[in-house]
C-alpha cells in the first residue's frame, strides 16, 4: 500500500559491494516506505541475493561505497544481530540446518534476544509456548515441528514455512524474502504467501527477491524493480512483472543498455 506520507524504512544510495574482491553490487538505489511491498526481480547473477545479504550484514560481503539507512539511521557498520534486533529480517533462500538445537529453543532464544535489546525481560518458557502455538497458525505448521532440530530433515516447503514462522514471531519492520518462493509447490507457495500477507501491515514493509513472476500473483507488490549487473535498471508496478513474464529479460535489459551475460 503506497502512502506518500509514510515513514521511510529503508533508504539505499549508490550501494557498491564486493565478495572476495569481485564487485557484485555496482550502485544500487532503493527507497522503501512503511506499508509498501517491493519485488526485486532479475536473472541469476544479477546481484539480488547479494543485495539481501549485504542488507542483513553477512560478513563475506564487503560494502565498499554508498549508504544504507534503516529508519533514518546508518546501519552499515552494525553487526548482523544488531540489524536483526533493530527490525530487519532476512528469510533465507537456503535456510540452514542446526542439528541438536530444537526449533522451539532456537525460536525462544531469538525471541528473547529481541526482548533483551528492547530492555524487556526474557519471556518464560510457558508464556513462550503459548505465544508460539498462536504463531504456528500463520503458516499452518504442526506443533511437532517445534521439537525437531532446526530445519533438520525438513522438506523445502517446511523450511520456507519455518522462515515465515520466525518472521511472524519476531515481527520485523523490514522483511527481506530471498527467493522464498523458489522450489515450492503451489500449496506451499499459497501457505507461505498467505502468511506474508497476514503479517504485512501499514507500519512494516516487505522486499521480495524472486526469479519468478508467479509469487506476485499471491503477494501483490506496490513496486517491481528489475536488477541487472549489480544495479536496479528500472522500476514499475505489477505490470512490469507481467511484461517480464511474457517477454523475458532481454528486451528490458537492451532498453537499459545492459548486456545479457550468458
Amino acid at each position, binding site marked *: 500500500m503506497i502512502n506518500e506520507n509514510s515513514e521511510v524504512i529503508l533508504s539505499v544510495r549508490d550501494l557498491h559491494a564486493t565478495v572476495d574482491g569481485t564487485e557484485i553490487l555496482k550502485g544500487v538505489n532503493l527507497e522503501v516506505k512503511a506499508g509498501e511491498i517491493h519485488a526485486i526481480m532479475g536473472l541469476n547473477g544479477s546481484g539480488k541475493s547479494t543485495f539481501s545479504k549485504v542488507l542483513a550484514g553477512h560478513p563475506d560481503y564487503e560494502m565498499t561505497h554508498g549508504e544504507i539507512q534503516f529508519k533514518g539511521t546508518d546501519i552499515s557498520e552494525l553487526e548482523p*544481530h544488531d540489524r*536483526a534486533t533493530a527490525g530487519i529480517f532476512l528469510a533465507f533462500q537456503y535456510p540452514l540446518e*542446526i542439528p*541438536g538445537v530444537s526449533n522451539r529453543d532456537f525460536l525462544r*532464544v531469538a525471541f528473547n*534476544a529481541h526482548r533483551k535489546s528492547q530492555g524487556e525481560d526474557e519471556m518464560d518458557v510457558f508464556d513462550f509456548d503459548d505465544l508460539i502455538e498462536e504463531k504456528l497458525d500463520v503458516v499452518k505448521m504442526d506443533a511437532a515441528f517445534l521439537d525437531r532440530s532446526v530445519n533438520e530433515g525438513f522438506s523445502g516447503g517446511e523450511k520456507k514455512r519455518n522462515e515465515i514462522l520466525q518472521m511472524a514471531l*519476531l515481527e520485523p519492520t523490514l522483511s527481506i524474502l530471498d527467493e522464498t518462493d523458489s522450489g515450492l509447490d503451489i500449496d506451499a507457495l499459497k501457505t507461505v504467501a498467505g502468511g506474508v500477507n497476514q503479517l504485512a501491515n501499514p507500519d512494516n514493509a516487505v522486499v521480495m527477491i524472486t526469479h519468478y513472476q508467479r509469487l506476485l500473483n499471491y503477494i501483490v507488490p506496490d513496486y517491481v524493480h528489475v536488477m541487472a549487473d549489480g544495479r536496479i535498471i528500472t522500476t514499475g508496478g505489477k505490470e512490469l512483472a507481467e511484461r517480464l513474464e511474457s517477454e523475458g529479460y532481454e528486451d528490458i535489459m537492451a532498453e537499459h543498455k545492459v548486456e545479457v551475460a550468458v
Partner: protein
Amino acid sequence: MAIQVSNSETSTQPTKREQREAYLKSLLSTAQAHVPDALAFSDLRAKAEAIVNEHTFPSNRDEDWRFTDLSPMISVPFQAAESPSEIDMGALGPVQMPEAIARIVLVNGQYNETLSDIDQLPPGVVVGNLANLKDGALGDQLTARLAMSNGGHEVFTALNTAGFQDAAVVYVLRNQVVEQPIQVVYLSVARAEPIIANPRCMVIAESGSAVTVVEDFFGAHDRDHFNNSVTEVWADDNAQVTHVRLQREGAGTFHIGKTAITQGRDSRYTLVPVTLGACLSRHNLEVYQNGPQTDTNLYGLTAIAQSQLADTHSLIAMNHPHGTADQLHKAIIDDSAHAVFNGRVWVPRNAQLTNARQLNRNLLLSGKARVDTKPELDIVADNVKCAHGATVSQLDANEVFYLQSRGIDAEAAQRLLIYGFAMDIIDRIPVPSLRGSLTNTVTGRSR
C-alpha cells in the same frame, strides 16, 4: 672415521629407556609401600608386580601411545599418600547429586566414611568399600572377581592392582532393580608432595538386575597429581547397567583411567564417558561381550581447551553371535588442545550376525586445536554389519550468520551451535541435575 665413547660416560648417563624403567619402578614401590594389611591379596599383588616389572613407562614409540606423550610426568616424583586426607563436606560441593540414592567417596584412592552416604539403600543392593566388605557375606564373590577382567596385563592397570589402597563397591543382587543412581566420587586432594592415587571400583550387577552408576573424578586444585584409576564392571546375564563416567579433574592432574566391562549373555550396557578435566588424560575403555546377544552402547563426549590433551582408547570385543554395539564419540576442542580417539572393534570368527556402528565426530574451535582419530575394525566373521566413520569440522560461518540474522549475537550463536553438537550425548545421561550442569559447562566454555 672413529668415534670414541668412553665407558664411564655411558654408565653415568642413563638412557631415556633406563629413565623410564626407573620411573615406573619408583611409582610401583611408592604404591606398594602403602597397601593396607587388610587388603594384602598377596598372590594378586605379586602377579601385578611381575607384570609391571615386565614393562617400561610408555613413550611415543609405543604404538598405543603414539599421540599421547607422557614424558612431562617423568620429572614429577609422585608419592602415594600414607594417611587419609582430612577433608569436610564442603569439598564435595560441586559434585553433589540430589538424585543419588547413595554416594561412596574415595579421597586419593582411600575410602572416606565422612563424605560417603550409604545408609539409605533399598534391599538387594550393597554399596561400600572393599576393606569393609571383603570379610562379610559378599567377600567370596568380590575376591573371586577382583582384577579378573580381561586386559589386566596393561601396565597402568597392573600398577593399580599392585598398589590400590581400597576399592569402591556397588553390588546389585540377582533380579534387583535400583531405580535411582548410585554415585562413586573420586576426590583428588593436593598434599605437600605430588600424589599418585590408585583408586579402584567394582560394579557388579548380578543376573537380571538393573542399576545406574555415576562415577565422578573430581579435583579442584591445579597442583601436580596422578590419578591412575581402574573400574571393573560386570553386567551378568540379562542385567542392565547404565554408567556415566565424568572426568573433571584439576588442571594439574595426569589422569590415566581404565574401565573394563564384562558382559554376560543378553545383558545391556550403556556408558556415557565425559572428559572435561586434567592436563593430560587417557581413558582405556574395554568392553568384553562374553555371551550371545549382548548390547553395548558407548556415547562419549570430550570438551577440552587451552593445552589439555584427552585420549580415548576403546575396545569392543564382540566374542559371540548376535551382539550389537553402538559407539558415538564426540570431541569439542578449543585453543591448542589435542584430542585423540582410537576405537577398536574386534569381531572374531564366532561373532556372527553381530551389528556394530562406530562414529567419531570432532569440532575444532580454534586453528591450533588438534585431533588424531583412528578407527580400528578387526573383522574376521563373514556375516556381520559393521560401519564406522570419523569427521572433523569447525563451526560453520553460515550457521553462525543464520543465528545472528535472528538477533542472536555471535558469541551466543557459537554457544548454541556447540550445545547442538554436544546435546545428543548429554541427553543420554539419565540424571537431570548432571545434564543441566554439563550443558552449562560445555557451552560456557566457548569464547
